[in-house]
């Protein structure tokens, strides 16, 4: 088994909590964050449910103490809050004491502001500042500036696998010695663009999402941000840092089947899991819990289910999707699920796959539907995005 890269801090804000502790309390008490939408006016508000963070943009501005002329998008604000938490949790007081970078990810970027002001720019010069914050790199730049990071800063945007890929790249940069430490993760805010986008694909559910259920209707969109701090072995030893867990395996593969749908037998998913297991030096017997992508779309759960069976045969470990708690937070999904994977390792607990009633007819897979306590050494986390982008991360316990 290969040890992997040390995680020394985490931060998160999601529909089920504004801190790591709040998220854990929610996960262990079936406290769900799915509701009707409040912060965005949309004609679909009666027909969708979302995992919304119940803070207005004004509240986020105040929380970050941003100056009045700022041009932070909601995506950037959520990201800054979570990233600051992670840095604090890692006990970092001087960010540039060691060579530190940031690899963030997003799919919405500043679109939440752009869609608001699209035609108004020509009438109102005070909002021109949001032209600059539209693109994907802006939220990362804002986070880097907030934290004081000056070295490698980059952003990955591969739809729903984005944050997994950010974590993967961060781990590789540490292993290659390009950075001593790196903040990795992702952020996405709710936006009309994505709500309408997923609506046109007819994969949004008007009720609470039900992953791996035969009657599943689709996903609930969510918003969130989460970051991990990864540090090199040298720093961990030198500073006597407490290691929360290790990123021990990672793999990215492409389904190369269709722009939005996954292949019937989950080829990309299978390859990604296989790669991750190889990097970690683990066998199928070693995985104690799979935090599935499990979006509750007809297509994903079937494809992912088949891939899991191909990978694990008759030794499928306990698995669950936590998206009934948080909704599908797009680029941030893999980041919040990374935090949940670490919590699982630290507390030897498997979080439930809520809302499950009827097993899928295509195979014999039953998710773990109640909170389960058992020793957990290794967690496998899946995230699959549009464009056939399939990523798997493996997290391992820190003794």
């Amino acid at each position, binding site marked *: 088994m290969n040890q992997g890269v040390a995680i020394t801090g985490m931060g998160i804000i999601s529909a089920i909590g504004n801190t790591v502790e709040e998220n854990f309390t929610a996960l262990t008490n079936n406290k769900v964050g799915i509701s009707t939408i409040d912060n965005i006016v*949309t*004609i679909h508000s009666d027909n969708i449910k979302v995992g919304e963070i119940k803070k207005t943009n004004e509240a986020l501005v105040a929380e970050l103490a941003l100056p009045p002329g700022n041009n932070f998008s909601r995506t950037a604000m959520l990201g800054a809050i979570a990233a600051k938490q992670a840095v604090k949790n890692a006990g970092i007081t001087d960010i540039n004491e060691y060579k530190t970078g*940031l690899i963030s990810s997003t*799919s919405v*970027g500043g*679109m939440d502001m*752009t*869609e608001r002001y*699209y*035609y108004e*720019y*020509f009438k109102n010069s005070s909002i*021109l500042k949001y*032209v*600059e914050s*539209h*693109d*994907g*790199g802006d939220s*990362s*730049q804002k986070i880097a500036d907030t934290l004081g*990071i*000056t*070295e*490698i*800063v*980059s*952003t*990955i*945007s*591969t*739809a729903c696998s984005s944050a997994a890929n950010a974590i993967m*790249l961060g781990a*590789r*940069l540490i292993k*290659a010695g*390009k950075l001593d430490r790196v903040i990795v993760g992702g952020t996405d805010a709710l936006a*009309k*663009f994505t709500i*309408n*986008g997923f*609506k*046109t*694909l007819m994969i949004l559910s008007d009720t609470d999402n039900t992953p791996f259920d035969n009657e599943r209707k689709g996903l609930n969109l969510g918003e969130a941000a989460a970051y991990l701090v990864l540090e090199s072995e040298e720093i961990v030893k030198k500073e006597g840092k407490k290691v929360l867990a290790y990123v021990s395996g990672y793999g*990215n*593969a*492409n*389904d*190369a*089947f269709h*722009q*939005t749908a996954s292949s019937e037998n989950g*080829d*990309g998913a299978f*390859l990604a899991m296989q790669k991750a297991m190889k990097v970690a030096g683990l066998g199928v017997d070693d995985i104690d819990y799979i935090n599935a992508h499990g979006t509750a779309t007809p297509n994903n759960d079937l494809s992912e289910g088949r891939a899991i069976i191909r990978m694990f045969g008759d030794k499928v470990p306990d698995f669950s999707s936590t998206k009934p708690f948080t909704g599908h937070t797009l680029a941030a999904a893999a980041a919040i699920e990374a935090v949940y994977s670490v919590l699982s390792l630290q507390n030897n607990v498997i979080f439930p796959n809520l809302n499950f009633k009827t097993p899928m007819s295509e195979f014999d897979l039953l998710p773990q539907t109640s909170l389960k306590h058992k020793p957990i050494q290794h967690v496998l986390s899946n995230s699959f*995005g*549009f*464009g*056939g*982008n399939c990523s798997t991360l493996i997290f391992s316990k820190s003794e």
Partner: protein
Amino acid sequence: MSKCYINGTGCISAQRTFDTVFLEAAEVNNQENVLTIKDPVYKNYISPGAIRRMGKGVKAGIVASSQAMQEAGLENVDAIITGTGMGCMEDSEKFLKAIIDNNESFLTPTSFIQSTHNTVGAQIALGLKCTGYNFTYVQNAVSFESSLLDASLQFATDEIENVLVGGIDETVEYTMSLFKLAGYIKAESEKPYQIFPAKSKGVVYGEGATFFLLENKITDSTYAEMAGVEIINKLPVEEAEQRLNQFLAENDCRITDLDAVVLGYNGDIDDEIYFKNLAENCLKNITQLYYKHLSGAYHTSSAFGLWIGAKIIKTQEIPAIVRANAIAKDQYNTILLYNQHKGRDHSFTLLKRCQSTI
């Protein structure tokens, strides 16, 4: 622990570059402040059934990447890594306009699906049935260099033998009008537009798709070794020289080894400070080149710059149209590239001529 070599290129740009040897058909267009792609005939490369959904960037990316692969003699690759600053703007704008104009009704999925930033990389993979590693970077002026860095990490650990790396960005009318409103693009009143030396704020914008096929070995089609790449989010002018020396040292090089530098002069008088800082000091005795007057300035235009650097090493000729100074060298064996935008997202890239191709 492998090195990596540029063994194939494909360039679709505001110049005729897709069916030429180098820049023999290039002309400076100082009459337009947004330069648009000179299109190849896409139908010759992509089936009508596939073309019908594709935005400009996707079409150009597919052609440029297939040219790079063809030149290198490969039919598939181990990985595809792309960089894009603004993503698939055409489709993004189409979907957003439809949402606003139709009050969220009668929306169709195609433009939403095609608007995700990783569409170019995904469509290339789909066309090749390539199941390998597939990442997309969206970090402004280092979107492309992030891709190069990622590729170089994978060669260093021997995870891949070859990879397609590309930079793609497209222009679209409404967003360009916003950029003009915000002052990013030079005002119409400044015609004819001058990029170097810069006289005012703002750039001449552009679009393009430039792809490279990198391999872990030297072949008949090798241009140069991609010897090193570094990205630095903030680099104050007073620290630039020291940082450059460090970068070169890490790649077995010193300033005195450099034959030429390709600089990202973009016509903006504020951005120029960073380039002049090096050009007028530690790099003043080498051949200096620039390219954004040909490609336009956009987040991944530095890929066009790399294309120029690679072509120079291969042809050992400097087209007059890219010269920023009159210094000439007997041979061009080591070329540095430096780019940044608005004082951020700095990158150094180093190309070395391969001994066996001299």
